[in-house]
Structure formats: structure tokens, C-alpha cells
């Protein structure tokens, strides 16, 4: 039976070839050569600046910079999207009233100066804001940009016929008036401190969209949403081919001067692998949301990594509902034991290649954080002592602590991202070493982030501990996640306080800071807030989650901001 043996042997040979591929490949070194670009957690001011460009004569062909996006925009209308990959393009072709530099300081764009109590922009009672616009503002088609456009933007946001993504913070406004083309007066229902970080993120052109609204009754399906040919930024939208690319060309009517790079080309690739490949070969000049594992590969291809903080920190919330939660988590000592039992520094060093640091509170790296707070150290013995003190001992010798007949077994849930699954595995082992057993659960992100009403497991308290990257409304420190009124229930199915945390003192502090228009008062309140959250271990930080940008060697003069990354894009230079 020679003949069938031959096929068998051949099949074996193919398999052997596969084996050789697996074993024979030489791995790249896994520890990155620690490159010059930031690898310690940056205070926001330390985003890398490269030296100014060498004087080059203007080349005849247009300078085109290619940006690699791993998620395609869903829509470009600022009112209809919260998608990060879409909102951050607004500095290119749309305009905010003011944006934020790399130190998260606001700088005026449409307004002459930021309103304050001193210059009369903010009224004494903190409820009225007056904006004075510049008088040289034009849309890219030459039409003047006036306060009428801002008024129109406000009206479209709050009109119920438009299914906009969010009406905040315009739903806090009592009324908005435009007494003259360069002035806008906004009156809030109550003094509203978070206005700096949340107002005027993108303006709609009234002369284009008002006729659409009048004809269709809504701007939900306006053509401008997907092809905003008229804009007010340094670049103008030129085209968008679904699934492939989008193009923006320099706007020569831009009031701050024409940008240096002639064209920005966005290329959509579906995954990190393709992005890294494109950046490595120079097919792309800029990429973002780089995973830590890819950083060494990119650095060896002369790509500069810029890390900038945008208010995100990865950590776990404890579900502390007094009736439905696990009794152990009601005790502050138990929560503190968690903090001491998990070696977060090792997580940062090994899983994140030392590129970031453990987080103490969500407000790390901002002035809102109490400066005396330092992350909890790794102290498993201390954790064991605390647990013993709290009465949780292993009375039945099964390796898991218990008290009053209740075992210390908890459900730990998160999404399905690789890094989170890996973290869970490590944490499970470290907690087991101090006698706490955790069951690991994962859910796809649209399931995980579902509301209580939609059966979201985190919202419904199915997890005792849940992990994700949380943020406040950067650059404003406000967040609603700690309010008692936001605890989800059948009456309030969309509540966002999934930890079911109702601490009346904390609640009062949060209510207070929202009305403190005076910065120093607000800072003080936040120092108290952050200290309380830290001391009572309501939230345990794993690592700071900065945005990681990959800037190719061809780009220079690049500064990246956390809130408005492309704030200085008109000054970027391209040398090919």
C-alpha cells in the first residue's frame, strides 16, 4: 500500500513544516530599550516637543500627512457623535470656542479671551456667561461666522426632533441670546462650574443647516453630517470613502493663517496589527491608541511615542449596595486589603512594559487631586492582617476566608480586551494568595456597558468587582458616577452609579463643587473628594491610562493635548 503511505507521509511533512515555523522563529527582545520618549507617567505638561523645523524651500508637490485610524468615524456632525475618533478631528475642520493645550490650559479660538469674573465675562452670581467673539471669523466658504451660528448650534442640540448624542451641558441653560453678531449671552439655571470643559465643542453652520432643518424637520439625515464641506478649521473636508479613507485639505480662508501641511489623509484600518505595520513602513505618519506591546517595535522604526493624559485611569469599583452586595465589601478594611494584596507596580512593569504607573485616584496628574495621596504599596502580609482584623478568617481550612458562614468569594467582571483578561488572571492569583477567591467573568463591551434597564451586568450588580477605564469629563473634573441619585433601579434604569455607592458626605461635596465657579474653592473641594475616595477605597486604581500617540519621523513641531489633541495642527511640519 505504497500509495496511501505516500499521502500520509506528505501530510506529516506539511505538519512538520508548520512546526518548524513555530519553533524556528527568532523572537524580538521583549523588553523595550527604554527610549527617550516619555515612559514615566507624565505630568500633563511633559508631552514631547521636537525641535522646530529646519528651513526648507516649499516643495512643488503638496505635503500630505497620513493619519492611521483604527476606527472609522460614525458621523462627523459634532452633535451626533461621542466617538473619540470623530470628535478629535474637529480641531481640523471645525472650531471650538476655545481648545486646550498640552498642559490642559484653555486657550481662546473663537472668543477674544476666556470669560472670567475679572473681565466681566462671568456674572457675580456665576449664572450668566458672556462670550465676545472675534470679528474676523469666517467659514471656509467665505460666510461670516457670528454668534448666530452658536445660537443655532444650541437650538439644534436641545430641539427634541434631533436625536443628538448628548444634550449636556446645554440642558442646564435657562436661555441663550445673541444681542449682536459678536456677543453671546448664556444664562444658566444655577451657577455651573464645569462650563469651561464642556461648552461649545463644535459649531454648526447655520446658513447650511437651517434650510435643511426647515425642510426636513430634523437635521438627523443632513448631507452635511457625513460630508461637512463647509467648516471653520485650518482644514476643509474634501472627501470620505466609507471603509477606506477621508481627506482634508488646507483652508486658505482660516483666520489664523493657512496651515503648513497641505493635506491630511485619514486611512481606516481595522486593527492594531495593520496600524503598526503601516507606521513601521512609513505608510502612516501618525497613529493613536497604540497598545503597549507594540511600542518597542515602533520605537525601533524611529517613531516617537507621545503619552498624554486625558483623564482615564484603569481600576476597579466595588459594588457596595448594603442589601445586594457581598457583606465583606461593606467593610473599609476589606477593601483596603485588596489594595495591599494586588501588586499594581508589577502589573505596570510587566504587562504594560513599564510605560505607565499605578493610579491612586482617577484624578491623578491633575491639580484636582490631593497632592498628599500616594498609591497603596504592595503588602500582602498587611492585607492578611487587615482581613484577620475584620474578622475574615479561614475557619474551615478550604483556602478561602469566611465569616459568619459566608465565604469570601467574589465575582470579578470586565470586558473582553486582552489586557484586561490578562490582568484578571494575575489578580486572581494574587488575591488567592491572601485567601480571597474571585470568579472571573467577561462580557463584550456593548453588553458590559449596558444600562440597568437593558440588563447590563455591571449596572445590575451582578459583579462584586468590575473593572474598566473610567474618566471624568476631562478637562473638567466633574463626574456623576458617585451621586446617590444616579444609583440604577427600576425607577431610574439609566443611572450611572453602578457601584451603588451612597455616601452622603461625598454626595454633598460633589453637589457643592458643581456650583463653585471660583477655581480655588473648587480645587479645595476636590482635594477633599479625592482624599475621601482614596481613604475609603471606593475605587482601586490599577494604572493610569494615558493616550498613546505614535508620531512618525516625518512630522515635527507636534504638540498633543489630552482634550483637544490637534490643537496646534496648523503649525505642524512635514518633511518627507
Amino acid at each position, binding site marked *: 500500500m505504497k*500509495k496511501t503511505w*505516500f*499521502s500520509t507521509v*506528505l*501530510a506529516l511533512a*506539511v*505538519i512538520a513544516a508548520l512546526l518548524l*515555523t513555530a519553533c524556528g522563529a527568532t523572537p524580538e527582545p521583549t523588553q523595550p530599550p527604554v527610549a527617550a520618549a516619555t515612559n514615566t507617567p507624565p505630568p500633563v505638561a511633559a508631552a514631547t516637543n521636537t525641535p522646530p523645523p529646519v528651513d526648507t524651500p516649499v516643495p512643488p508637490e503638496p505635503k500630505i500627512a*497620513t493619519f492611521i485610524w483604527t476606527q472609522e*468615524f*460614525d*458621523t462627523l456632525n459634532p452633535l*451626533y*457623535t*461621542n*466617538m*473619540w475618533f470623530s470628535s478629535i478631528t474637529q480641531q481640523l475642520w471645525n472650531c471650538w470656542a476655545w481648545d486646550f493645550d498640552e498642559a490642559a490650559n484653555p486657550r481662546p479660538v473663537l472668543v477674544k479671551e476666556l470669560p472670567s469674573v475679572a473681565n466681566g465675562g462671568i456674572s457675580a452670581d456665576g449664572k450668566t456667561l458672556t462670550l465676545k467673539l472675534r470679528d474676523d471669523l469666517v467659514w471656509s466658504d467665505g460666510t461670516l461666522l457670528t454668534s448666530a451660528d452658536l445660537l443655532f448650534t444650541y437650538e439644534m442640540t436641545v430641539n*427634541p*426632533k434631533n*436625536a443628538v*448624542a*448628548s*444634550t*449636556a451641558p446645554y440642558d442646564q441653560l435657562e436661555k441663550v441670546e445673541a444681542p449682536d453678531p459678536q456677543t453671546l449671552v448664556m444664562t444658566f439655571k444655577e451657577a455651573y462650574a464645569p462650563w469651561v470643559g464642556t461648552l461649545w465643542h463644535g459649531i454648526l453652520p447655520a446658513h447650511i443647516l437651517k434650510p435643511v432643518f426647515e425642510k426636513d*424637520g430634523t437635521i*438627523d*439625515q443632513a448631507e452635511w453630517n*457625513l460630508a461637512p464641506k463647509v467648516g471653520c478649521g485650518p482644514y476643509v473636508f474634501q472627501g470620505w470613502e*466609507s*471603509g*477606506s*479613507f477621508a481627506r482634508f485639505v488646507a483652508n486658505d480662508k482660516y483666520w489664523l493663517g493657512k496651515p503648513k501641511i497641505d493635506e491630511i*489623509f485619514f*486611512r*481606516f*484600518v*481595522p*486593527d492594531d*496589527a*495593520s496600524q503598526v505595520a503601516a507606521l513601521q513602513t512609513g*505608510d502612516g505618519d501618525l497613529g493613536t491608541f497604540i497598545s503597549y506591546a507594540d511600542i518597542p517595535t515602533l520605537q525601533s522604526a524611529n517613531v516617537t511615542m507621545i503619552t498624554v493624559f486625558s483623564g*482615564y485611569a484603569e481600576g476597579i469599583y466595588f459594588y457596595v449596595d448594603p442589601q445586594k452586595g457581598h457583606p465583606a465589601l461593606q467593610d473599609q478594611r476589606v477593601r483596603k486589603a485588596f489594595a495591599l494584596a494586588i501588586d499594581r507596580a508589577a502589573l505596570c512593569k510587566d504587562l504594560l512594559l513599564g510605560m505607565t504607573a499605578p493610579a491612586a485616584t482617577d484624578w491623578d496628574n491633575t491639580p484636582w487631586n490631593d497632592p498628599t495621596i500616594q498609591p497603596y504599596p504592595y503588602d500582602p502580609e498587611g492585607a492578611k492582617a487587615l482581613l484577620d482584623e475584620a474578622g475574615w478568617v479561614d475557619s474551615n481550612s478550604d483556602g478561602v476566608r469566611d465569616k459568619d458562614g459566608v465565604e469570601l468569594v467574589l465575582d470579578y467582571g470586565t470586558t473582553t480586551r486582552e489586557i484586561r483578561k490578562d490582568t484578571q488572571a494575575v489578580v486572581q492569583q494574587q488575591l488567592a494568595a491572601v485567601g480571597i477567591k474571585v470568579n472571573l467573568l467577561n462580557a*463584550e*463591551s*456593548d*453588553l458590559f*456597558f*449596558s*444600562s440597568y434597564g*437593558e*440588563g*447590563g451586568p455591571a449596572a445590575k450588580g451582578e459583579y462584586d468587582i468590575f473593572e474598566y*477605564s473610567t*474618566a471624568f*469629563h476631562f478637562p473638567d473634573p466633574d463626574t*456623576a458616577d458617585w451621586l446617590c441619585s*444616579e444609583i440604577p433601579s427600576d425607577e431610574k434604569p*439609566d*443611572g*450611572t452609579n453602578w457601584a451603588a455607592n451612597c455616601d452622603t458626605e461625598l454626595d454633598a461635596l460633589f453637589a457643592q463643587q458643581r456650583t463653585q465657579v471660583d477655581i480655588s474653592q473648587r480645587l479645595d473641594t476636590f482635594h477633599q473628594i479625592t482624599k475621601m475616595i482614596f481613604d475609603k477605597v471606593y475605587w482601586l486604581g490599577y494604572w493610569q491610562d494615558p493616550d498613546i500617540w505614535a508620531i512618525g519621523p516625518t512630522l515635527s513641531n507636534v504638540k498633543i493635548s489630552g482634550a483637544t489633541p490637534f490643537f496646534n495642527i496648523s503649525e505642524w511640519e512635514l518633511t518627507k
Partner: protein
Amino acid sequence: MGRYIARRLLQAIPLLFIISIGLFVLMQNLGDPLATMGGRMPTRSADRERLKRQLGLDKPVLVQYLYWLIGNNWTETDLDGDGIAETPGTRKGVLRGDFGISLVNRKPVLQVIGERLPATLLLMGAYEIVVIVGALVVGIYSAVRQYSALDHAVTGISFVLYSMPIFFIGLLSIYVFAVSFQRWGLPSLPPNGMFDPQVGKTPSQVALHMILPVLSLALISLAGYSRYIRSTMLEVLHQDYIRTAKSKGLERRYILLVHALKNAALPIVTIVGLDLPTLLGGAIVTERIFAWPGMGRLFLDHVERVDVAVVMAILMLVSVAVIVFQLLTDIAYAWLDPRIRYD
């Protein structure tokens, strides 16, 4: 024949209804479409309530299905949350050709699909041609040279390829042709995308980028279908009428191409007829690996964002295509083989 076709088509209608209801119900539990509308942060509660109302997601499932099927421009919806329905709806429903608006980017669903369909058709067209030609060549050659070294080699390799998951072949081919070739300084094939945007969407670019995905897809199917053709050909070649033809002194090639090939047409019809419509849904996994902007990726992206309108449209489209192609295949069978009769 006409009555048979008419009967099949009529039978398809209740089938499609059952499918649409079943799928719609499945859709309801996929997750919360509003969950990811907050961008990187969970959606604010005030916005959730408002969006649910505006997008019609607060209605019971059957009502939502009804609106999907026959639209809502014959009734009024409550857009401003005061409990009184005052705004007339704008949807015409699937039965009138309106597949709705995508939740993700507010584009009409048919437009969303229309943008991605050509890319998928291109990939699938190339794949079909490669598979048909390849399977014919390999199958016929193996049948004619049965038990030769090549036959066994092909059989062995076919089995191995047939047992590989598509993404494994995809990964291997990326690793070999894109990564390793580049490392060794050889001209390498591009690992993803449809074209290099610096160069533009030229036919040569698209062709170059198509090589790896088509190859990965085709290798597996080639393995299966070449064996199928081989066994059909073997059956045919042992028939009496072939022996008669040979003894008449007809040239080998003539016998093969004219007599035997005609009988291999039936398997080809099977390949094209039953394989093609499922590929309309795009080769989901292949498109994911190779970043091909087709229907498969569209489906995955929109399932993740629980965009019911688009997902339902894709599934219904594929179902209709399957039913139509099954019918066409049966008709083709009857035409090719006069022994087959339908009443």
C-alpha cells in the same frame, strides 16, 4: 417548470417571514445599542432616556418589528417626551423598500450596504474563479492520473488544507508573505486593506491586495471541491460510454473536455450555486484579518454596536440570496441533466 418555479417562490415568502421574526427576536438580546453611544465613557442617563425615545427603542418588541416591516408613517411618535405622540413617523418599512436608518451613523441602511457590497463582490468573484478553475484542473488531473504520485500529493495536501481554520492559513500567509518576506528583503505582499491610499484605488493596487485574502480563502475550498470533482470524474471515466469513445479512437483530450467535462458541470453548479450566496455575507473572518472593507466587516462592526437595522438587512439579504440561488441551482440541474424532472 414555470409552475414549479412559481410554487417555490410562493413557498419562500412564509419562510422569509419566519426567518425575519426569529432573527428580530434574537436581535433584542444582543446588548444595548445605547451602551456605546457615550464614546469612551458610559452614556449619560439623561441622554439614554432621550435617545431611546427618539430612536423608537422604548417600544415593545412586536411593535418595533411592525415598524420595521411596514414603517411608522401611518402613526405618530412622541419625540419630546411629554407622553403625547405628535410627530408623524418617517419610516416606510421593509415591505415598501425602506430598510431604515443605521443607528451608528444615521445613513440609510441600503446606502451603508451599497457602499460595501462591491468590495465583497470583487473578492468573492475572484475567489470563485480561482476555485472553479483550480478545482477543475486539479480534480481532472487527479482523476486522470489516479494513484500517481501527484494524485497522492494533492490528496494529502488537500486533507491538511481542508482541516485548517481559515484564520490559521491567513495568519500563516501574512507571516510568510508579508512579514518574513520583508524581513528577508524579498518583495512582499501587502497584509491588509484594499489599496494603498498614497497610490490610489487603481486596479493594479486592488489586485495586489487581493492576492493574500483570495489565496487563503481559495486554498481551503479548492481542497474540498477538487476532491469532489475528482470523484465525479472518476465515476464518469469508468462509464461504458467513455470506453466506447476511447475504443472509437477519439483523441484523449476531446473525450475529457467534451464528454467528461460536461458531467463535471453538475458539481460546478453546486459550488457556485450553493457557495456563492453565503459568501455574499462576506467572508467574515478573512475580512477581519486582512482588513478588507466588505460586508463581513460591516456585519461584525454593526453587530458589535447592536445596530439592528443594518444587521437585519444583511441577514435578510443573505437569506433571499440563498433561496434564490437554491432555486437557480435546481433549475440549472434540470437543464443540465435531462433525467431530472420537477413536476
